[in-house]
């Protein structure tokens, strides 16, 4: 099937080579980082995780959100999603690949990565993260590929896939839960030290992931002969709005607990993110933008007439996706590190090389995604033809 990714229009190849160009450029910056050290990033002694780990966290969510297609289709027999479930699984594959690349980009000694396997340490959450992520990658590759292959041959998918598909549901939940456990089990970091972190991660994932998928569906319809379907897109839109509302609800629970209890260790981080602390507030405009975007997204999606207009829907999905990206990809990680354990404020903002390396990782993900979707659409066209 892979050969379908090697035949395409001129526009397809321009896109592919553009991505390869970006990857090459970003890889150049990565070589610089390997040579100089992580000092070329904006990270510092106090904010020791930054853009890379935040993107990793965000993308684990996008990967996990494939489950929002798997559950209705396989557990509730919602037939309409049969058409696009593989799109979700392929999105998960490219997201997990990006996650792994972001982890590698963040390591000070990447060539020692396999020490994690050489000295397995079950009491470290990072060890479990490595296990659940690689497992999730394999499950989605096997399931997505084989189901598509069966469809191409007009036969039902092999029986042995069923248990694997069922396994993928709790597994998807686990990847984002373990990612939240990286943060929320740390005793001295009040911002993350909340049991609602994992549920909130999942809720924001189930809003941001499907929002992105809707955008992808609309794009696929535009540039190929395959139509993911109006009903499918509308159902996804409802998933997005449920997820986004749950996310905001959990967020407001967090805000209430921190602000009403007025315990400084919990309150100061929110204060920093939304109002600034001791005169420092580089993230304040970002956080308010995120809030406005997420809330406008919810309002647009809640109104049936707006939701059913696909241009408005696209805008609402972009709002939701970008809002959640800022919240998780900028605020969540840096906000937990400021103020530092000695209650000093040292801010963080990504540097240009850091952003370029991140862009290259995204380009790699899009390259994988493009090729997988090319195969997917190719099979769909072949079957239809």
């Amino acid at each position, binding site marked *: 099937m892979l050969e379908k990714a090697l035949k395409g229009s001129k526009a397809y190849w321009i896109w592919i080579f553009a991505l390869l160009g970006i990857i090459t450029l970003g890889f150049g910056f990565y070589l610089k980082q390997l040579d100089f050290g992580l*000092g070329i990033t904006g990270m510092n002694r106090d904010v020791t995780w930054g853009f890379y780990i935040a993107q990793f966290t965000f993308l684990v969510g996008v990967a996990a959100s494939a489950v929002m297609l798997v559950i209705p289709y396989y557990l509730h027999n919602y037939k309409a999603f049969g058409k696009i479930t593989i799109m979700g699984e392929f999105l998960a594959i490219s997201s997990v690949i990006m996650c792994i690349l972001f982890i590698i980009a963040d390591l000070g000694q990447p060539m020692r990565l396999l*020490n994690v396997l*050489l000295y397995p340490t079950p009491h470290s959450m990072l060890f479990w993260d490595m296990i659940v992520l690689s497992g999730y990658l394999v499950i989605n590759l096997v399931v997505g590929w084989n189901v598509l292959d069966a469809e191409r041959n007009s036969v039902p998918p092999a029986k042995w896939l069923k248990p694997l598909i069922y396994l993928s549901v709790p597994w998807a939940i686990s990847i984002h839960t373990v990612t939240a456990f990286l943060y929320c089990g740390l005793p001295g970091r009040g911002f993350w030290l909340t049991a609602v972190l994992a549920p909130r991660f999942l809720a924001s994932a189930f809003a941001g992931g499907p929002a992105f998928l809707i955008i992808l569906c609309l794009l696929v319809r535009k540039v190929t002969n395959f139509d993911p379907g109006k009903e499918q897109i509308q159902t996804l839109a409802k998933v997005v709005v449920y997820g986004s509302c749950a996310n905001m609800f959990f967020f407001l629970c967090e805000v209430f607990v921190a602000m009403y209890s007025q315990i400084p260790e919990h309150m100061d981080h929110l204060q920093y993110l939304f109002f600034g602390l001791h005169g420092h507030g580089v993230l304040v405009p970002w956080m308010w933008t995120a809030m406005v975007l997420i809330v406008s997204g919810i309002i647009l999606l809640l109104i049936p007439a707006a939701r059913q207009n696909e241009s408005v829907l696209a805008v609402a999905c972009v709002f939701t996706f970008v809002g959640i990206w800022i919240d998780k990809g900028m605020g969540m990680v840096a906000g937990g590190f400021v103020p530092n354990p*000695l209650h000093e404020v040292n801010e963080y903002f990504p540097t240009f090389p850091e952003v370029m390396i991140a862009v290259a990782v995204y380009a790699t993900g899009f390259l994988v995604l493009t090729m997988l979707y090319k195969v997917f659409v190719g099979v769909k066209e072949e079957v239809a033809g």
Partner: protein
Amino acid sequence: MENNRRSFLKFAGVSVLGLGSLSLLDGLTSDDVIASSGQTSAEATYKKTANALTAKRWGMVIDTKKLSGKICRKMEKACHQIHNVPHHENKKHEIKWIWEAHYKHVFPGKQDEFLEERLKELPIPVLCNHCANPPCVQACPTQATFQREDGIVLMDFHRCIGCRFCMAACPYGSRSFNFRDPREAIAHENEKFPTRMKGVVEKCNFCAERLAVGKQPACVEASKGALVFGDLADPNSEVRQLLKENYAIRRKQNLGSNPSVYYLV
């Protein structure tokens, strides 16, 4: 034809996977050989140095009444020089094992509107607490940071992958990361102690290398009696005597990490 090609690809894929896992296994077993040859090779044995200072649980008592800015800076200088701690101009890349801070930063949970005047501006040294229940050790995915039998929390720089999970886990900000090559920023190298390399985390080691040759930690030696070092598990030790007779506090003891550094206030 199509089928042939597919089965060939499957076969090739499985072979590659097989070879890959084989080499992984190979790596694992050869490491075992390394470990065992180091440990049990016929006649060779390892032991502690004869004059090593030993304890069940090393700890430190800092008497704030004996502190001054001068002493703090002397301690910091002694420690950083002996351990080849680099001095980077860029504060973002800063590395420190022991440094001075004010009361409100050392004990952010014990802020007091009407704090004793003396404490307000007093420089207080902060360093790794060598917690009995260290969150950093729990977080490290490779056991590169670990707790020794005598309670000292150490770094194995050979094993650290630089993920900085320990830095997120440490509630005291005691850890530093080598954002760049440290060697460029060491003015006077101590030839007897190694430097670090870029990409690994480092922190105070309670002078494990000095204890091994019968010496007290460098900061304690430089402290003019303000710092006392000893065995917290020994009721007759000097540190225990001090704690028996004085009221002492520890940093963020509500977190359950059980620090081994006490402050007399």
